[in-house]
C-alpha cells in the first residue's frame, strides 16, 4: 500500500512518528559520523576522552575534598564520590551543549533533505552516551583501584541513565529549537552549563544541603540523577532522598514533554530560518 502524504500549512504531520521509525538508522549514522570525524587525523584523540574526566576528578577532589574538607558519603573515598557525580553530569552537560547547537551545525542538511528533525539533537545525545560509556570504564577501573565493591543497587543504574537521558534531551530540544530563531541562546548555554556545574552536587555531596532546602534543591533535575548515580555506585554508603528524586523526575519529565512540543511546533520553519 503506497503511503499518502498530505502537506498543508499548519497541519501536524500524522506520519511523524512512523517517519521517525522509518528513519531510525539515521540516529546511528549521524552519531557515528560525529564520532568518526572526531578522531580523524588526531594522535591522542581517543585518549582525550579519558584524560579529561580523570583530570577534573583530581581537581575536584583536591578543592572540595582536601581544601574545603567537605565530607564524603559514608565511608566511600572522596574521589569515587566525585567521579560518580561527574559521570552523569558530563553526560548531561555534553548532551545539552551539543544538542543546543546541533540544528545550526547541520544547517546544510536541514535546508536540503527531509527527515524528522528530531533525529539531529537526539543523535548528539547518543554521541554523549558513547563518551559516557568510556568514562564509565574509568570509573570501573577506579573502583578496582580502591577495592570498593558495589552493592545490589548497581543493577538499577540503567534506570538512572535513562533519567539522565530524559533530563538532557528535554531542555536540549527546547533550546535548539529556540536557537534556530534567536541566535542569542548560543551564548546562554555555556554559561548555564558552567553555573550548573557548581550548583549541582558534582564536586560535593547533596547531603551537605540543609534539610529544609533539599526539596527546593531537587528542582534541579540533575540533583536527582546524581544522587541516584551515587546511590547505585557507592552501594549503601550514600542514601537516596526519595522525595527529592520524585521532584527531579517530575521536572525532567515536564521538560521532556515541553521540549518535544516546542520542537515539533517550530520544526516546520527551521529550513526557512536557519
Amino acid at each position: 500500500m503506497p503511503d499518502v502524504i498530505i502537506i498543508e500549512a499548519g497541519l501536524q504531520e500524522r506520519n511523524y512518528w512512523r517517519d521517525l521509525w522509518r528513519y531510525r538508522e539515521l540516529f546511528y549514522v549521524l552519531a557515528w559520523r560525529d564520532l568518526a570525524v572526531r578522531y580523524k587525523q588526531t594522535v591522542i584523540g581517543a585518549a582525550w576522552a579519558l584524560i579529561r574526566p580523570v583530570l577534573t576528578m583530581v581537581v575536584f577532589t583536591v578543592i572540595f575534598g582536601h581544601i574545603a574538607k567537605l565530607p564524603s558519603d559514608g565511608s566511600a573515598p572522596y574521589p569515587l564520590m566525585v567521579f560518580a557525580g561527574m559521570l552523569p553530569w558530563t553526560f548531561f552537560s555534553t548532551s545539552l551543549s551539543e544538542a543546543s547547537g546541533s540544528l545550526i551545525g547541520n544547517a546544510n542538511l536541514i535546508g536540503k533533505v527531509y527527515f524528522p528533525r528530531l533525529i539531529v539533537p537526539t543523535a548528539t545525545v547518543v554521541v554523549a552516551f558513547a563518551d559516557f560509556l568510556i568514562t564509565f570504564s574509568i570509573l570501573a577501573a577506579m573502583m578496582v583501584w580502591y577495592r570498593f565493591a558495589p552493592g545490589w543497587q548497581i543493577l538499577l543504574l540503567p534506570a538512572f541513565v535513562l533519567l539522565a537521558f530524559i533530563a538532557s534531551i528535554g531542555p536540549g530540544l527546547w533550546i535548539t529549537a529556540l536557537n534556530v530563531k534567536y541566535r542569542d541562546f548560543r551564548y546562554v548555554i555555556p554559561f548555564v552549563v558552567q553555573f550548573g556545574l557548581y550548583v549541582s552536587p558534582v564536586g560535593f555531596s547533596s547531603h551537605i544541603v540543609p534539610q529544609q532546602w533539599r526539596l527546593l534543591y531537587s528542582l534541579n533535575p540533575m540533583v536527582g540523577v546524581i544522587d541516584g548515580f551515587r546511590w547505585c555506585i557507592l552501594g549503601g554508603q550514600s542514601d537516596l532522598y526519595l522525595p527529592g528524586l520524585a521532584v527531579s523526575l517530575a521536572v525532567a519529565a515536564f521538560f521532556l514533554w515541553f521540549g518535544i512540543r516546542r520542537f515539533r511546533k517550530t520544526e516546520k520553519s527551521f529550513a526557512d530560518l536557519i
Partner: protein
Amino acid sequence: MISVENLSKRYLVGHRDERTGQHSYTALRDVIGREMRNVARKTIDVVRGRQVVQGDTVEEFWALKDVSFEVQQGEVLGIIGRNGAGKSTLLKVLSRITEPTAGRITLRGRVASLLEVGTGFHPELTGRENVYLNGAILGMGRAEIRRKFDEIVAFAEVERFLDTPVKRYSSGMYVRLAFAVAAHLEPEILIIDEVLAVGDSEFQKKCLGKMGEVSRDGRTVLFVSHNMETVIKLCGRGVLLGSGQVVEIGDASAVVAGYLRGNYSGATEISLNDKPRPFGLPTRIRLSGANVVAPQLDWVFPFGQSLSFDIWIDSTILIGNAELGIGLFSTKGYEIASWTNACSGDQCVVRPGVNAFRVDYEDLMLLPGQYSIGVGIRSGQGRDLEDYVPDAILFEVTASARSAEINGRTFGGALVPRARLSPLTEVQPTTAYADLGR
C-alpha cells in the same frame, strides 16, 4: 502521483531605510528613534511568536502564488523558468523541507529529493564512509546501500580512491560519487533540482542515461533544469513558472518553446536607419528595416525551422541589377556563410521609394546559438557599395524536438549540412575486417 492545489509560499523580506544613508547629517535622535522602533517591532514579533526579520521595514514576498498542477504516476514532469521564478521553492515544499503558507499537496508514494549533490558529505570521511552517510541521509537503509555499493562505486568510477578522505578528491570525483549514490535511490517519486549540470560531458551522458532508466521503470519524476534539450528529451509534460505562478502547462516542447519565446520581448521590427555604418553613410540607397515573416512572432527560431525575413530599402534612384548580400556571423564574429541574390540567380530591382524583399533560406540547419546578420546592397553588378549595415539583425536558434532527436548539443560547428546515407551492395570492400575487436 502528485496533486498540488493552490500552493503558495510567502517569505518576509527586510529592508534597511535608504533615506538616512544619503543624508550625511543624520541626527543621533533619528538613529535612536529608528533603532527603538526596530526593537519594539522585534519584541512584538517575539511575543507573538512570529519570525524576526532584520531591517527597518518588512515586506511580503510571495515565492509561490496559487500554483496548481497534477502529475500522474510514471510521468516525467519538467519544471522550467527563469532564475527566481520559484522552481527551487516549489521543490523544497514538495520535499517537505519547508512548509507552504497556503494550499495543499497530496503525494502518493515514497519521495526522494535530490536538491544538491553531496548533501551531508563530510570532507574528513573516506569515500566509502560517505557513501553510507549520504545514502542514509537520502533515505536508503544500510542493507540497501550494502547491496548496491559495488554498483554505486562502479558508476562513479572511484574504486581506487574509496578509502581516501573526500577532501582529497577532485571536484569531478566528488560530484560523480555524490550523484552515483543519489542515482541508485528507488523511490516512487523522485524530485531533482538542476543537479545534472555537473561533471564532464561523458558523465553527463551517463547521468542522462540513468535518468532515462528511472523514468522507464515507471517512477514519477519531477525535474528542474535550465537545459532545454534535456527537458525536451526526458520530459513528457512541462510546467513553466514565472514570478511564483504557473505560466503554462502542457507538452514539454510547447512549454519550452513558450519559455524561450518569452525571453525575447516585444518588437520584431528592426529599424536599420540609425545603425552604425563603418563604410560611410549611404547617399542613394539605404537599408531601412527588417522584420520576421508571419507566423513567426520574434527573432527566435527553433532548430530545423526555415529562416526567413523581410528587408526594406529606401531608394532615390532606379537600379535594375542591385545585389543584396546577407552575411551570417556567429556572435564571436566568425563568418559562417554569406550569400547574395547573384548566387541564386534572383533579380533584385530597386525602385525609387520604399522597396521590400523577402529572403528565404531553404534548409539552413543552424545549430542552437546566437547569430548576427550583416546586410549590404551593391549596384553596378556588384562593384559599387551603396550601403552596408553590420550586425543589422541579432537572432537566436533554440533547441527543439528536432535538435533533441539528433543530440544537437554534441555537434560542433555552426550548422548541420544536408547529406544522405545509403548502403552499397554492388562493390566488395577490400580491407579485411578480421582485426576488428582485437
